[in-house]
């Protein structure tokens, strides 16, 4: 075992203790008219890991077991309409606005590896394409909202929520981002943008078992080998 790895392990042990014993600290970031909650799950000097939750979820209260191997700091963002972030009136969600949420977190944190579950994985792909320099690898994992809506146009649905329904999560986000259209070539464009503008060998890691058409297109565009969350984290932490 090299000293470097040993050093990482020690740091992780220390942080586990912190996770159990100390309250989580959070910061509030402004994205347009929304206050976003960004939670520090583990303070550390090492590289940043940013967790993006799935549709209808919120940030975990402590570093989840599947991310525990990360050697550095771990942060988690509550998307608009989720967790401790603002619930706006009247809906109007798009995956692109959530990409703006992730961008606000990156502006605060600086370069970070982004691990997204479900919808968060789709957003991780978008932000990896848009901010190839700030995203030190995007990991797409299974989770709610991975599949999203259709790949092409469908008949539009008249959607609204019952009066008085509230959240979190915002009933509008559950409705709107379970059915957002995700054309495979649109997703592939973001994957290619990430590959062309990032200096990482493989800026996208597909660790999801679920394979909606948009994700197949990402895998095909970059000729990716499927991986696991653990291996992807190990790869990006080097």
């Amino acid at each position, binding site marked *: 075992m090299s000293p470097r790895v040993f050093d990482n392990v020690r740091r992780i042990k220390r942080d586990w203790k912190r996770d159990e014993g100390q309250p989580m600290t959070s910061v509030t970031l402004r994205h347009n008219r*929304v206050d976003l909650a960004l939670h520090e799950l583990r303070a550390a000097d090492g590289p940043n890991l940013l967790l993006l939750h799935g549709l209808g979820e919120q940030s975990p209260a402590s570093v989840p077991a599947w991310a525990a191997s990360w050697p550095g700091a771990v942060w988690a963002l509550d998307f608009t309409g989720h967790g401790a972030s603002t619930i706006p009136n*009247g*809906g*109007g969600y798009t995956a692109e606005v959530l990409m703006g949420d992730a961008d606000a977190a990156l502006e605060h944190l600086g370069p970070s590896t982004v691990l997204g579950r479900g919808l968060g994985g789709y957003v991780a792909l978008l932000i990896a394409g848009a901010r190839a320099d700030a995203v030190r690898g995007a990991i797409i994992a299974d989770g709610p909202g991975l599949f999203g809506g259709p790949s092409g146009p469908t008949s539009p649905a008249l959607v609204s929520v019952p009066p008085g329904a509230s959240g979190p999560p915002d009933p509008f986000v559950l409705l709107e981002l379970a059915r957002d259209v995700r*054309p495979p070539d649109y997703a592939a464009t973001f994957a290619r943008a990430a590959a*062309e503008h990032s200096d990482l060998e493989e800026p996208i890691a597909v660790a999801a078992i679920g394979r909606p058409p948009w994700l197949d297109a990402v895998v095909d565009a970059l000729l990716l080998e499927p991986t696991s969350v653990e291996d992807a984290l190990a790869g990006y932490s080097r």
Partner: protein
Amino acid sequence: MAIAEEDLDDEARAARAAVPEARRPDRRRIVSSNGLKLAVYEWGDVNAPPILLTHGGMDFAGTWDLFAPLLADGGWRVVAWDQRGHGDSEHAALYSWDADVRDAIAVMDTLSSGALPVLGHSKGGGLLMQLGEMAPHRVSHLVNVDGLPGKGRRMVDVPEHERSRMMASELTRWLEHRRSSATGQRKPGTLDELAGRRARMNPRLSREWLRYLVTIGARKDADGWRWRIDPSMRFGGFGPWRPDWSLLRMPGLGMPFLGILGLHMEEMGWGVKPADVEPYLPMGAEFHALDTGHFVHIEQPRAVADIVLDFLARR
């Protein structure tokens, strides 16, 4: 809210008076769309049959001040609203076409639970076509004024790597704008400066009209006039939706349909020509192409009103 006539300063009062054919709404009220406050305006007899007008992107209901009175005088209760983030309506955290369509329905719910005629300009026409497909039971007649979909920009000759570079730079610009929009403000200026800025997007419209619009769509702060529109809104953008998807849905609309197109291409227009849309019009649709730019109903309010009144009377 838009400045009441009695609160205007002399310069603004003169700007209003310079367009004597324009008429401010007879009534104004607020409608809540799932908690978001929308400003709604009406011209004409409250007991007349209602028709809903939907303005285009970056516009506001006051841009109907030339056209709506002609429909009102033709026997209609003309109802328009400022779309979320536009005019006097609340600036929202989120914007999308689905949300705009829900807002339209919130306004329509205050008029009738059944079907009524709707008329939209530019983006407003596009929104109403989505509404007409989503909720045909709410739309008795659909009038689209220079908002007919086209095939969109096709980038067939652009190599793949070039396309992703173009998209990446557009994305970066959008994200940079989002980063600053929490604190952003529209640039202040004199009444003439604001009219001049709008003239760049509305080159065919008279300076008198643009100065008139400033007195409605802008407010006067200590440091000058500012457009009221949400500073987080901007032109351009990106997303998964493609214009040809809208085009392919148009033939399926079942209510009486009237399409009006301006023949002169300009900045705010969609670059759609009659030959592009004619094959896709719904069965039995009426179609008129006028010798105007994109703002057909502002350049020729009487001609457009006559076409619309005639269409509504016959169908």
